[in-house]
C-alpha cells in the first residue's frame, strides 16, 4: 500500500521506566530498568488512507524492547478498534506495524517479532490531566500528568525530535496493567507520557 495516508489525534504511552530517558535521548539512553515494557494507545480523531476514512477509531499496542530503544529487537502486538471495518483494520495494521511508512515506518527496522493484530473494544477517555485506557480483560490504565512548577499544569518536553510528536506531557501510570501474549505487566507507578500526534505517510 503506497497510497498517501494521514492520522491525527492523541496518544498515551505507559512504560516500565522509573522516568523515561528514551524520548529525550531519541532511544540512545538505556531504559532505567535495562529493558522496556510498554503499551501505547492512540485515539485517532481524524484520518484518511487512500479513500478510506480512519477518524474516530482507537488503536493500542504492546511493545517489549530488550535494551536501548535505538538498538531494536522489538516485539510488537497490535490492538485494533473492533468498530473498524475490515478495510480500516487493514490500513491501521499497515500503518501501526510500520509497513505504510511515515513516522511509524522506522519500526520496519526495529521490530524483530510481530505478534499480530487483535480486534478488540478499546476505550480511550480523557479529562483535564488524566487519561484512561481500557481493553476489557487485557489493559486497564489510568495515567496522570506530572504537575509542574506552576502547580497547575503539567511538565512538558517541547521541540523534541521524537518520531511520535514534537511535544509530550510527562505523566505517571497511576494504574497501568496489561496482560496478553504471555506477558503480565504491572506498570503502575512508572513513567508515562501523552501528547497529540499528526502523522502522514508513506
Amino acid at each position: 500500500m503506497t497510497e498517501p495516508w494521514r492520522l491525527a489525534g492523541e496518544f498515551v504511552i505507559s512504560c516500565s521506566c522509573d522516568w523515561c530517558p528514551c524520548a529525550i535521548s531519541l532511544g540512545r539512553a538505556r531504559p532505567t530498568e535495562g529493558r522496556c515494557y510498554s503499551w501505547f494507545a492512540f485515539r485517532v480523531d481524524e484520518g484518511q488512507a487512500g479513500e478510506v476514512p480512519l477518524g474516530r477509531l482507537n488503536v493500542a499496542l504492546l511493545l517489549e524492547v530488550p535494551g536501548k530503544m535505538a538498538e531494536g529487537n522489538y516485539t510488537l502486538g497490535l490492538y485494533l478498534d473492533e468498530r473498524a471495518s475490515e478495510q480500516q483494520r487493514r490500513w491501521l495494521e499497515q500503518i501501526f506495524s510500520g509497513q505504510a511508512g511515515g513516522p511509524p515506518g522506522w519500526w520496519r527496522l526495529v521490530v524483530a517479532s510481530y505478534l499480530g493484530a487483535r480486534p478488540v473494544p478499546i476505550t480511550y477517555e480523557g479529562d483535564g490531566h488524566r487519561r484512561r485506557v481500557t481493553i476489557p480483560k487485557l489493559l486497564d490504565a489510568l495515567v496522570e500528568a506530572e504537575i509542574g512548577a506552576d502547580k497547575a499544569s503539567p511538565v512538558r518536553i517541547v521541540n523534541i525530535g521524537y518520531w511520535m510528536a514534537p511535544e509530550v506531557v510527562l505523566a505517571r501510570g497511576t494504574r497501568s496493567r496489561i496482560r496478553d501474549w504471555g506477558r503480565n505487566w504491572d506498570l503502575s507507578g512508572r513513567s508515562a507520557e501523552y501528547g497529540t500526534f499528526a502523522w502522514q505517510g508513506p
Partner: protein
Amino acid sequence: MPVPPTWRLAGEYLENCNCAVLCPCIVGPRNERGGALARPTEGHCDVPVVFEIGEGGFGAVRLDGLGAAIVIRTPEAMAAGNWTVGLYLDERADAAQREALETIFGGRAGGPPGFLASLVTTRLPTRVVPIRFEKDGRRRRAAIPGVLEVEIEGLPGADGAGEVWLDNVRHFAARRLAVARATRSAYRDHDFDWDHTGRNGHYAPFTWQGR
C-alpha cells in the same frame, strides 16, 4: 503595601552534572517541598552551576555583568541533603558587590539559593576568580582559569533551529530549561576532579529575586 524584594538578578546560567542524559532529578518524583527524590544515574550528583548576571542589584549595589558559580556534591538523591557546596565570585566585583554575591549565592538572602541552603552541610572556602560565560546558538561555555572549563550543547530540536526544552519544571534556576549534553567538561578544585564530558547539562535564562 507589599515589601519590595531586596535583590533581583536576571541573566543566563548553565549546569553540567555527572548524570547520563536526561538527569532524573529534573523529571523524577519530588517531595512535598519540591526536592528531587530520584536517584542520580551514578548514585550521587556532582554539578557545577555557572551564572552570568545580565542585570541585577542587591539593595543599592548594582551587580550587572558579574559572574558567579556554585559547585555542588550531593552524596545521594538531591532531596536527601548533606550537600557540599563551594562558591566562586567574579574578581571584577568590588568589596560591596562581592559581599552581595556571597550573601545571595550563599543562600543567606532567600530566593532560590535560600531554598537550597537548608540542604547544605559543608561549605567550602569561597574563591574570588575570573569567570567567563559565553552564549553562542545552542552552545554555552563557562570557564574559570585553572579550575573549570565547561562547554555544553543543546539537543537539536524538531524545528531544526532551536533546542529541546523542558517546560514547567521544578528547578531552582528556572522553570524552563534547555536539555544539553557536555561537549567538554573539566572541574578540578578542593578535593574534586570531575570530567562530565558527554553527560547531562542544562541552560536557560534565569530571573531570581529575594530578600
